[in-house]
């Protein structure tokens, strides 16, 4: 299968002399489901941020779906991000907007008609079992529910790539398994999924492939 994400000799330095990422080279195939693991400060989040070009690496090349994303001008980055769904550890929900509007944001930026948007948001929320809370505000939801809203927002526009940064952080094991199960389901529909986690239990249960990072270095690319 063709590679969806290719990283070649990625180096990233925030400030001298520490390298947040050191010579990372890896490929993730289309439709693959993989974890990036490692202790806190190992560079997991930095790696994800370089993939959706929130950060520009100091050196190296990043190719997404055959396109070198470092050559995309800043004003065109949105086109790359429309192909991706990103889930953050802190959810990043808009708290003054309802669940419907939060999940519908990626469709809204595409200029989708309201009727179609409503259908898509409802179906996605049904998938994460939150359709009955569509008109509620995020503040009235539990932690796990907020996380599921963030996941619904990441998948609502059927992106080709899902990037999730510690999506199960601070969740109990049962809820964490449920969330990862959701990503598995999304992956079965064809999306390439990369999840950053340091939860060994989750990796043991769900991992097909794990990339281990330590002090910014890739120390193992294992297929489980």
């Amino acid at each position, binding site marked *: 299968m063709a590679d969806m994400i290719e990283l070649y000799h990625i180096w990233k330095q925030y400030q001298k002399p520490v390298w947040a990422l050191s010579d990372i080279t890896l490929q993730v195939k289309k439709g693959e489901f993989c974890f990036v693991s490692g202790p806190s400060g190992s560079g997991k989040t930095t790696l994800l941020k370089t993939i959706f070009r929130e950060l520009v690496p100091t050196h190296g090349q990043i190719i997404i779906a055959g396109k070198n994303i470092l050559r995309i001008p800043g*004003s065109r980055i949105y086109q790359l991000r429309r192909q991706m769904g990103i889930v953050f550890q802190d959810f990043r929900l808009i708290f003054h907007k309802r669940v419907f509007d939060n999940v519908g944001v990626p469709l809204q930026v595409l200029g989708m008609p309201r009727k179609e948007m409503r259908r898509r948001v409802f179906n996605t929320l049904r998938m994460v079992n939150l359709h009955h809370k569509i008109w509620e505000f995020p503040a009235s939801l539990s932690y796990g529910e907020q996380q599921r809203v963030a996941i619904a927002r990441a998948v609502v526009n059927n992106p080709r790539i899902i990037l999730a940064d510690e999506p199960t952080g601070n969740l109990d094991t049962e809820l964490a398994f449920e969330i990862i199960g959701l990503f598995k389901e999304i992956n079965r529909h064809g999306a390439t999924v990369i999840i950053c986690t340091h939860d060994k239990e989750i990796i043991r249960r769900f991992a097909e492939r794990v990339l281990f990072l330590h002090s910014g270095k890739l120390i193992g690319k294992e297929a489980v």
Partner: protein
Amino acid sequence: MTIICLSFLIIGVFLSLSNNLQFLARQLSENLAVVFFLEKGLSPSDTEAVMRTIRSSPHVGQVRYVTPQEALRRFRQRFPQLQEVVAGLGLNPFPPSVEAVLKDKTAESADVLSFIDSMRRVKGIEDIQFNRDWVERMRSLSRLARAVGFFLGGILVLASFFIISNVIRLNVLARKNEVEILRLVGASNVFIRVPFLMEGIAIGVLGSLLSLALIYGVIRIFPVYLGSSLGVLQEIVNFRYLSVGQCLSLVAGGAVMGFLGSLSSLARFLKI
């Protein structure tokens, strides 16, 4: 909003004042007449000769002879409160005169002055009154009012620009999280910026519309309060409302200022 409104209010009031003065100047120049006061007891043939001389000038349109009786009647009509003063004199103090209305555009030319100077030497003419100075004064006052208005308004418009810029900056900061999310889900720069720009334009337009409403109120209410106590000045302070073009210019100015204010703020504080 208050400062934006205030800045346009000042421009508007001075524009209105300028309009008023220009209107007066135009009225004066339209009726610009030269009055030739004749010597008392001038014979009808000499009077006719003077009128012929006046008529022969290419600058002069209509010419009319005003008898002392008519001049007295006019005076009584215009200044009824001074009737007793004239009655106390026991005789008619007004000399006969000839009123010559100047042709259009003539009032502007320097030739008129030389014509009037030459007329001073004509036998039978005692004095000449020409109110061109008033027209000039009105015009320069109008220009001054407009300049002061634009100067003060300009300073306030600049202040409004920075205020709008700061309002948008605060909004950008307040919605930083939302903007960040929009960026990450693939919103284009235009998609993110347009609401802020619209907000800036709306603030500018609303501020200028509010100022137009206030100007309207001031123009309606001001003369009522001052009433006739102003006398001759009433005509000057009796502001005429702005023309449609001026109103539209003020609103457009508000929109442009709002747009530029938010644009500058976005350029500085919304790094996307």
